[in-house]
């Protein structure tokens, strides 16, 4: 942990371009991965199923969204709708007899195509107008899902996911569902870290920073933005399918409503725009902090230490959630990723003051 930089010299360009330039970082990530893989062994099923599993899946969703919002700089307030397309498409494909592995890919493709169509329509505008257009998209897709019985199975219906197996392993037990979700999230993480180093990733960043400047250096803004929408919607669609099969297992339209879109944007912002570790931390924080604090306050209220009404308690998660968004935007706009980065940089050269990278 300490003196991490000492003895680390990059003498070739390859070494300097490595994903993890500092050996300690690599060991840290490997240790975390092993801990995550072994989680079903030492985490109780209750915690695994209701906290760790959703955290992993929402991290994958936040990663998909941050590709669009953080790297390409395109705001999207209807991402839950994209995930809904993936979830419903995968269920109907599996029911129609398509193998689960193929259904995941196809549902991703369907979300990507629909998401890119809406994105293309909205790409004439920027900023606030893009927010409004994607918001309208959220309401439209919500309505279609609710009101077309062939999709939702009728109004107010829940659609159960059929039993499936992934590469001959049945996705039935909690551990199997957790490992599948973890596998997808890790895949997305690796993809995201590498896409930043490709020409596509750099084109996205150029578009984000100034689109006509990017056009001047030969990046086609429209094509790149459309590809960003396509890629991000594909990732979101598959994540929606994973969410349906691994976590909810019975899907209703309300699970993909407008509030969920806001929650996703909050995860991305609280974590830090365009950051991998930020997506993981942000998803965990937005998901778990309100639950944790509400449990704390209701515990105190039950013990009679704080005089609050039941009505207040039931609204507490909303309050904490809103206050959290405001607090992060005002105090640390770069999010949890920046806080982690500050700590990391401090320890890089501890006990000295200044870090190199």
């Amino acid at each position, binding site marked *: 942990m300490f003196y991490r930089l000492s003895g680390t010299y990059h003498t070739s360009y390859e070494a300097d371009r490595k994903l993890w330039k500092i050996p300690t970082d690599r060991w840290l990530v490997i240790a975390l991965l092993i801990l995550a893989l072994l989680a079903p062994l030492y985490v109780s099923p209750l915690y695994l199923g209701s906290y760790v599993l959703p955290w992993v899946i929402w991290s994958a969703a936040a990663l998909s969204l941050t590709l669009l*919002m953080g790297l390409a700089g395109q*705001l999207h307030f209807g991402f839950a709708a994209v995930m809904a397309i993936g979830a419903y498409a995968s269920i109907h494909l599996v029911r129609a007899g398509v193998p689960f592995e193929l259904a995941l890919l196809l549902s991703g493709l369907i979300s990507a195509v629909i998401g890119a169509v809406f994105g293309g*329509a*909205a790409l*004439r*505008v*920027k*900023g*606030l*107008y893009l*927010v*409004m*257009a994607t*918001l*309208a*998209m959220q*309401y*439209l897709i*919500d*309505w279609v899902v*609710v*009101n077309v019985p062939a999709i939702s199975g009728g*109004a107010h219906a829940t659609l159960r996911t059929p039993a499936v197996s992934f590469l001959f392993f049945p996705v039935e037990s909690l551990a199997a569902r957790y490992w599948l979700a973890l596998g997808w999230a890790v895949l997305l993480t690796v993809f995201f870290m590498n896409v930043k180093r490709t020409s596509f990733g750099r084109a996205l960043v150029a578009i984000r920073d100034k689109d006509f400047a990017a056009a001047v250096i030969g990046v086609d803004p429209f094509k790149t933005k459309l590809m960003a929408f396509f890629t991000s919607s594909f990732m979101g669609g598959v994540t929606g399918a994973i969410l349906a099969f691994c976590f909810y297992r019975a899907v209703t339209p309300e699970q993909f409503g407008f509030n969920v879109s*806001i929650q996703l*944007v*909050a995860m991305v*912002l609280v974590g830090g*725009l365009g950051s991998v570790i930020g997506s993981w931390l942000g998803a965990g924080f937005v998901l778990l902090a309100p639950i944790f604090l509400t449990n704390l306050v209701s515990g105190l209220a039950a013990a009679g230490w704080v005089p609050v009404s039941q*009505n*207040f308690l*039931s*609204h*507490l*998660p*909303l*309050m*904490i*959630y*809103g*206050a*959290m*968004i*405001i607090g992060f*935007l*005002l105090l640390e*706009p770069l999010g949890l990723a920046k806080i982690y980065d500050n700590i990391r940089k401090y320890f890089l050269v501890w006990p000295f003051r200044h870090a190199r990278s």
Partner: protein
Amino acid sequence: MMAYFIELLISGALTGLMYSLVALGFVLIYKSAGVPNLAQGALVMTAGYAVWLVMAWGLNVWIAIPIAAAIMFGFGLVVERLLLRRMVGQPVIMVVMLTLGLEILLRGLVPGILGSTPKPVDLGIDFAPIIIGDVFINRTSLYGGIVALLLVGASLLFFRTRLGTKLRAVSDDHVSSWAVGISVERAIGISWGLAGIAAVVAGALWGSSQGVDWTLSTLLFPAVAVVILGGVDSVPGVVVGGILVGVLGTVIPGYLDSIAGGSTRDVVTSLIILLTIMVRPFGIFGREDIERI
């Protein structure tokens, strides 16, 4: 059949005017500060609760509404001072998210403290509809529509006063306004306060027609459609956009709901937003150089 259509038309137009009450606050803030205030719906809800709270002290409506207006004016000033002023110069996503965070916070805090069951606000309006021929007209909507028109007219006049001229200057260019000695911060603060007052009128009228609870904050969505259609920085656009959104959002569901299975109003509203943005992003009366955001 004709009477049904006319009834839909009139009630749509009146509902639309009531939407424009909500939208007016949005435009007032956008015009001076360039901030899209997605918390306007929650502001209307808070104002509705404020009116209810003041009336619960046993005060007459006509005293309660000015007191609530004073409270919400102060609230608008506080929000601007504590939250929005620190976001100057930040990218639009930060500002949008901040107002959304405020929306969520208010939606939890206000019903959490004051109770989430619908609160009655009695403005003394008769619930019996006015009947002309075969057409029924809801009195609350009628008075709401008239008040909306009056309020928009008052805002138009206000923008011709000394203070209003300052606000227009600020909306044109912050730096030049500073250069000629206008306090930009105060102007933006006042516009938030005025949005709070508009929210009180909207909250009282909507509250009297459907009760005050958190659902008032969902008025944000039709208000956004009104604003996009009319032009985000245009006060007259609020009236025209409001009537259009109200009429389309009432007449079309009036015929389609029985076929398509309900709640086509949201679809119409979404389509209005999408089509406006694709065809004419700056709205009917908006300025074309809206790109600044």
